[in-house]
């Protein structure tokens, strides 16, 4: 197999693009693709201060690496979730990555922030899927860090596979407000929110993994121990089987939705006028924001558990 660009021996085949690339040409292809996405979707410019949420996985580290390489002004944000060895390993890799490239990194630990609950503690108290609590805690930490740090853009490493799986889930359950919000750029709906962008939304997991490997990025290969059985993985498996038979399906699904489908759902967004959370001061649709409602539920259930155990 030969590189489409220079005809040298290829190192990666991309069926979705009907192409193959050698290492230097793939790295160039990847950089150009991300830069084009940022420009086309008007995500940010070199004047913006971009906070990059990094987990230690391939996508977020690849994103931070390529943004830095493209000359954008970035700072990393790592949120320690308290998931035993997995979180410890992730934090170590993120710190090593930042240090090796001389990049600025903010580290937050859920044990020392807000209510002090880790993800395992939150999941055990609410008996919900850990991923649900994790999403709420992380979004709150990201929003707060971006607002307090004076950033005007928050970038996350969501890739094409994430977007396709999320879209499939939203369509299967006709989640109209979620379909309305499924966009690669979310403009702030409150002065304390910043613009949220997903520069890898057109880039497949295979591409981000290959980029991270070829750039020598030491990322966390292990899955989060809480993700076993996560619904998103079922959707990803379905999309991968479709992609195997019909290369390019994921990209077409997401891009055609954004072009033709999304405008039809735009009115379904439940964007109420946001006020401030009575507890933490972050934007909230009601008296409390989603994070503080969850914290309050955890505290209530914990108090109940203590009462029952004493009785």
């Amino acid at each position, binding site marked *: *197999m030969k590189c489409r660009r220079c005809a040298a021996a*290829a*190192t*990666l*085949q991309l*069926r*979705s693009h009907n192409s*193959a690339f050698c*290492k230097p040409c793939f790295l160039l292809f990847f950089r150009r693709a991300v830069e084009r996405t940022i420009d086309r979707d008007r995500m940010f410019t070199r004047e913006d201060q971009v906070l990059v949420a990094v*987990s230690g*996985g*391939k*996508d977020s580290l690849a994103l931070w690496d390529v943004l830095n390489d493209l000359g954008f002004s970035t700072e990393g944000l790592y949120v320690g979730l308290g998931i035993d060895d997995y979180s410890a390993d992730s934090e170590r890799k993120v710190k090593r990555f930042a240090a090796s490239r001389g990049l600025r990194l903010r580290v937050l630990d859920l044990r020392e922030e807000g209510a002090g609950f880790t993800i395992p503690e939150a999941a055990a108290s609410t008996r919900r899927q850990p*991923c*649900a609590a*994790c*999403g709420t805690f*992380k979004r709150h930490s990201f929003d707060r860090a971006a607002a307090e740090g004076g950033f005007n853009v928050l970038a*996350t*490493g*969501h890739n094409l*596979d*994430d977007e396709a799986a999320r879209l499939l889930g939203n369509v299967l359950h006709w989640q109209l407000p979620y379909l309305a919000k499924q966009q690669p750029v979310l403009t702030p709906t409150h002065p304390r929110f910043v613009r949220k962008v997903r520069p890898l939304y057109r880039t*497949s*997991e*295979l591409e*981000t*993994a*290959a980029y991270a*490997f*070829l750039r020598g990025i030491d990322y966390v*290969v*292990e*899955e*989060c121990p*809480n*993700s076993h059985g*996560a619904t*998103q*993985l079922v959707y*990803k*498996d379905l999309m*991968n*089987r479709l*992609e*195997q038979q019909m290369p390019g399906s994921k990209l077409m699904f997401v891009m055609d939705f954004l072009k033709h489908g999304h405008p039809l759902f735009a009115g379904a967004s439940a964007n109420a006028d946001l006020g401030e959370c009575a507890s933490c001061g972050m934007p909230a649709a009601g008296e409390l924001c989603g994070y503080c409602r969850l914290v309050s539920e955890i505290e209530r259930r914990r108090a109940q558990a203590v009462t029952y155990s004493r009785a």
Partner: protein
Amino acid sequence: MNVRLEPQGKRVSLAGRRRVGDIVRTLGIVAGTVLVIRGDELLTDDQVVEDHESIELRAVISGGLR
């Protein structure tokens, strides 16, 4: 050849020299969901792995809610 599957940490032995695409199919893996790694290089489906060589098949799927 020795095949290491990550992140499962599982090891599989396959006999004879084989093309990468054949290895992936034999192990029942969906195409495009793994990086095929030999040393510090990535392999494409048409490349051949010799009987005495070791490779890693590294899943590219990340899960959960981000």
